[in-house]
């Protein structure tokens, strides 16, 4: 019904009133002559109806024939509007120019929305895209979009996957963060040896899989084979397996903690500088006329996008906050340094002993100083699991 109304509006229609002794005669004549009437309502000696613009002459003729008077009440539709605004040629040209402008501007990227995962700053991505020539105000080209996708993937190692979807004049960039290096093929992890991570003397061992290459009481060096994944049986057959087990050895370890006698501390001052830029359709309009401060400033970036009816507009307010800092020299006293180094040592031991396979048997601390720094040297005698698994790579030749 809405479409019918629209078609009627396009072709134009008029509302009329028939007055006379027998308006029904007009109705009958209209029906016989194929005159389409709608929304008709009748009262005594009066009939109101609507008809198409093109049937106006027929309606007048039939009204005359039926000895009734036809009065046009109101006219509707595009032809009537055109007639009203015929004198205003500027409107017509404005419509044409507006349509051309609309078509032309539809070919540009008006807005870029970046859906970046946690850990990747969308402003940094926006800047990288700008360097690659993809910003608000560029003309849309699928080749350029593909090229930008490829270039950004190569340039930014944090990105594992990137896709630029262009919806009309909006570009939506979906990013997935890289989760780390690709894991090795599991098939290569089927065969492995256990090697030593430190020098020492074996105190106890528990080999669950593989053939042990050392015995309790033997001295070992770093990198020495402890358990082999190659097992030979008495009948001469050889089986390759993944070695498993724990080998504990008495090891010695020296840790040197250092603290400088003179160090620098960074403190923020009250001087803060704000720089503001207005980004409109890819054009940067500076609102603050000052250059970038050169030294001893930290920078924070803030971006505010303009919205209209939940739709992002190509208007962006970019603010840079420059915070001044200063170096404050700190001279450390011997007692304070000793106390601080002890605390660091305590923390180190807490983290060293947090695993079950390490145990401190004895330790010897020595505090000393040289020209520039204080030193805390600690010698540990420990019992620890010295096994480290190394995989044997087998390739087909």
């Amino acid at each position, binding site marked *: 019904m809405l479409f019918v109304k629209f078609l009627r509006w396009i072709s134009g229609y008029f509302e009329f009133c028939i007055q006379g002794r027998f308006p029904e005669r007009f*109705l*009958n004549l209209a*029906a016989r002559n*194929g005159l389409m009437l*709608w*929304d008709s309502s*009748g009262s005594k000696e009066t*009939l109101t109806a609507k008809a198409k613009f093109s049937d106006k002459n027929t309606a007048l003729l039939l009204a005359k024939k039926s000895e009734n008077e036809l009065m046009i009440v109101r006219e509707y539709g595009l032809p009537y509007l055109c007639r009203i605004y015929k004198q205003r040629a500027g409107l017509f040209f404005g419509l044409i120019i507006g349509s051309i402008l609309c078509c032309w501007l539809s070919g540009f990227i008006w807005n870029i929305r970046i859906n970046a995962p946690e850990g990747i700053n969308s402003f940094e991505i926006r800047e990288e895209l700008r360097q690659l020539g993809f910003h608000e105000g560029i003309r849309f080209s699928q080749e350029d979009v593909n090229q930008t996708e490829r270039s950004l993937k190569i340039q930014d190692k944090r990105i594992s996957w990137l896709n630029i979807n262009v919806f009309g004049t909006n570009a939506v960039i979906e990013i997935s963060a890289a989760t780390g290096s690709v894991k090795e093929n599991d098939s290569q992890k089927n065969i492995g040896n256990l090697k030593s991570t430190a020098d020492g003397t074996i105190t106890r061992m528990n080999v669950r899989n593989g053939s042990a290459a050392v015995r309790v009481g033997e001295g070992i060096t770093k990198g020495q084979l402890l358990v082999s994944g190659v097992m030979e049986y008495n009948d001469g057959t050889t089986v390759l397996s993944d070695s498993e087990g724990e080998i504990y050895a008495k090891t010695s370890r020296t840790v040197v903690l250092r603290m400088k006698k003179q160090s620098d501390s960074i403190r923020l001052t009250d001087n803060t500088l704000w720089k503001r830029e207005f980004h409109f359709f890819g054009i940067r309009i500076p609102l603050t006329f000052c250059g970038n401060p050169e030294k001893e400033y930290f920078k924070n970036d803030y971006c505010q996008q303009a919205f209209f009816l939940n739709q992002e507009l190509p208007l962006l307010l970019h603010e840079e906050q420059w915070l001044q800092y200063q170096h404050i020299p700190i001279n450390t006293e011997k007692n304070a340094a000793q106390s601080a180094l002890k605390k660091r040592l305590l923390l180190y031991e807490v983290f060293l002993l947090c695993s079950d396979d390490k145990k401190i048997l004895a330790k010897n601390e020595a505090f000393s100083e040289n020209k520039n720094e204080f030193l805390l040297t600690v010698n540990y005698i420990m019992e620890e699991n010295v096994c480290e698994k190394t995989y044997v790579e087998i390739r087909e030749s």
Partner: protein
Amino acid sequence: MKKELHHANKKNSFSELNHNINMSVFYNREVIFEGCKGVVEYTDQSIKLNTGKFLVAFNGRSMHIKSMTETNIIIVGFITSIEYIL
């Protein structure tokens, strides 16, 4: 035999009478009338249609003609009675 002939004549005349007239009434709001030969009276309380052999009057409130062609007509309104005027 005579009775059968009379019955057949009666049947033929009945089918002839209803040959071109068909009326569909939707609740009391809309009537689609086929076989109309003209509108005799048109007010917002009554619409009388000519079928050639008799008149059909649709009485009610807010009665108006929704659409009309040479033989078909759609009447809309709150119909309270339908009257056959022979």
